[in-house]
């Protein structure tokens, strides 16, 4: 996000503090003084990670602090996981399978590779799923598990060793 604030001592700290207050994580702060601009405001670009749904809170707090938000960039999907599905993928409506993930709004299928042997034989496909947070990824995988079980597909998940 790109912020604009008064160029006075303590202002930058005042703008950054709320980010940690809402549980966010600052990845980068880019602070470039534009020589041509008038000198009483300061523009700062911040790249940050926020827990799901906390963006609204942050915007409210920043406004209260008198910080002007010039622009909020796109939310980027940070988590990526690859799974393989085996079964009658076309007969069980592959686009619906993908849509079940895409329609969540918090995760999406970003890549799909598929092999299709003879008709009536089981096909295999590799799906890469992206999500904003790890929790969202867990939810997306759990949706995929129930879709796989409902459509009688074999879902092969990656081994995650985070305990």
């Amino acid at each position, binding site marked *: 996000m790109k912020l604009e604030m008064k160029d006075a001592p303590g202002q930058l700290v005042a703008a950054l503090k709320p980010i940690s207050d809402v549980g966010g994580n600052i990845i980068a702060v880019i602070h470039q003084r534009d020589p041509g601009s008038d000198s009483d405001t300061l523009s700062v670009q911040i790249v940050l990670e926020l827990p799901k749904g906390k963006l609204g809170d942050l915007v409210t707090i920043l406004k209260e602090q008198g910080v002007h938000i010039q622009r909020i960039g796109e939310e980027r999907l940070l988590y990526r996981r690859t799974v393989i599905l085996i079964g009658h993928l076309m007969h069980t409506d592959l686009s619906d399978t993908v849509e079940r993930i895409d329609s969540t709004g918090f995760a999406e299928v970003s890549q799909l590779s598929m092999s299709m042997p003879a008709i009536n034989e089981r096909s295999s496909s590799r799906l890469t799923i992206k999500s904003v947070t790890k929790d969202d990824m867990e939810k997306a995988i759990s949706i995929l598990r129930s879709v796989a079980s409902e459509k009688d597909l074999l879902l092969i998940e990656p*081994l995650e*060793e985070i305990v």
Partner: protein
Amino acid sequence: MKVAIIGMGSVGRGVAEMIAQKRLGITVTGIADSKGGRIDPDGIDLFGVLEKKQKTGSCGNKKISASDVVRKADYDALVEVTPTNASTGEPGLGYIRQAIGRKKHVVTSNKGPIALAYKDLTERAKKNGVALRHEATVGGAIPVFHTIEHGLAGNEILAIFGVLNGTCNFILTRMADEGLTYEQALLEAREMGYAEADPTYDVQGIDAAIKLVILANTIWGNGVTLNDVNRTGIELLTPDALHLAEEEDCTIRLIAEAIPKKGLLRVSPRIIEKNHPLVVEGTLNAITIETDMAKAITLIGKGAGSVETASAVIGDLLYIRDRYVECA
């Protein structure tokens, strides 16, 4: 130390051979298979027994049963290596109970009794002041329980991940390396003697799940059973799926995992990076133990085989001798 050996299959023969060859200070005073047995308080000639078993298919006298040996022979530890029955645990379970009842130590490679009655058996053993050890039940030659109990003493075990079935690992290795179909790889496994005529127990992940239950009960004492394991086998895997994994520098392996904090107990084919330590070739087994202090430790070794499994049984026997018998 005096021992009695019940069961003269692959493991029993391996144990007898190694005791005969290696001067381990172990005397066998009783031996039996399903057809008959021998008792000799002065020590049985094991080379003679092995030869007789090979020639006649039986190791002793028809009038002396395995149960007679368990109940009457004079021994410090019973080596119970009869075939696994996953639903009743018998006849091994009965022999183990009888031996513990006589205040004898027990070493077993039999998964059935340990998976079905671990809590009951360990309580009986504790009450009677004897040891019950079962290193050979999981991972063949791999000393996983010794590692956890001694090498990792004081650690909290957070999770276990394992490749616990050599047959499945062989099939998956062949499918990945040669592009074989599941059916072709299974056929090859049978020809090589790695798969039974009825491979259900292996390929549906039941064998791996039983070993996972044994690991979980031994490590956490959580009383889980085979029914608590979320289980998927490898029968429906396609060479295409392995190829798709390969494109991402990954492969597919049947992984058993237990993470008590997440309530997770699962055996399933998983996508795993090819350079991961659990990715072993052919019939090898591998077990990763995650702990609070040591972090991850992976053990790799032969998951089956006569002498390999005998190594685990003999390791248990010598542990019992050093810990209990000599100072008694």
